[in-house]
């Protein structure tokens, strides 16, 4: 299965972490073994395409938040307050959603053949987010602009989780 992107939204509807995995030729992957988020445009990657995507990632995050927020409210209205939507699928991709009791939203876009990722998102929250972001004494309580979330440990373990566990 292929993971396309991953987003975390806090309870103020702000995107505090986003990460995209664009399938690249193996030669580039081998060179940048630890790519950092959003700055993964290596010199020999496609500059115009990545330039365009870098411009729209903020907009994408907002659109994705709007989508999951609307769908969540719709589902709660129809299924009751304790209902929550897990995933939706289009002809091209699948979006997985997990919300913690503190209203932090985890969103992951994968290909349509992937199974349910609820457990995986829960594991990312429990094993990565809580361990490396919440328990980090230097991390602020809120994360305006992603401060405290984009630390090295979290990014590296997320990278490992997605590349090793999920594929």
């Amino acid at each position, binding site marked *: 299965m292929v993971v396309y992107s991953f987003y975390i939204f806090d309870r103020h509807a702000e995107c505090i972490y986003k990460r995209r995995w664009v*399938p690249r030729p193996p030669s580039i*992957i081998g060179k940048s073994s630890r790519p950092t988020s959003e700055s993964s445009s290596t010199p*020999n990657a496609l500059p115009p*395409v990545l330039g365009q995507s870098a411009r729209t990632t903020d907009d994408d995050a907002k*659109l994705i938040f709007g989508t999951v927020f609307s769908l969540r409210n719709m589902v709660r209205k129809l299924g009751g307050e304790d209902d*929550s939507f897990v995933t939706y*699928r289009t*002809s*091209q991709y699948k979006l997985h959603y997990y919300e913690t009791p503190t209203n932090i939203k985890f969103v992951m876009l994968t290909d349509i053949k992937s199974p349910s990722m609820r457990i995986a998102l829960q594991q990312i929250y429990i094993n990565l987010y809580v361990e490396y972001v919440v328990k980090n004494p230097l991390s602020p309580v809120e994360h305006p602009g992603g401060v405290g979330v984009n630390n090295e440990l979290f990014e590296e373990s997320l990278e490992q989780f997605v590349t090793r566990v999920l594929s």
Partner: protein
Amino acid sequence: MTVFSLIIINKAGGLIYQREFQPGLRKLSTNDYLVLAGTFHGVHAITRTITPKLPLATASTTATTPTSSTIPSTPGTPTPPTPASAFTFPNPGIPATGLESLETDKFRLTCFQTLTGTKFLLFTDPMMGNIDVVMKKVYELYSDYVMKNPFYQLEMPVRCEAFDRHLAGWLRGRT
């Protein structure tokens, strides 16, 4: 199998039909259903625009899923600059659609959009299979008893007794 309800949304996002077949979902007021239809119409369009775009240079070589391992790469040569529009969708053979199926703990929502933009929303049990059969039959009944009704005005609320009757009868026969 359980079909909770059916909603039909016209191409402008207006609610033209809403019917509950079996209890299971919470009842909303008519106004809330109208809001829901409009919201869904917008969300459906957004879900299509946020389709992940893959750079064409890596994905065009393979017709199926563009995994990075299948690409015959030419190491050392810089990739030729491609125009900003050079991208492909994950499943290049199929046009990008909006939301087709949504799963929650309590129900599954299946959306079918006709070529003319009308959307059929079917709320079913999450365990139920063969929803496309039900959807196809609903569309067939809609074509037969709504579209062929000479008194039906396009894009207006569906008030066709024959459609109601046949829909209820067919769904009852299946359970």
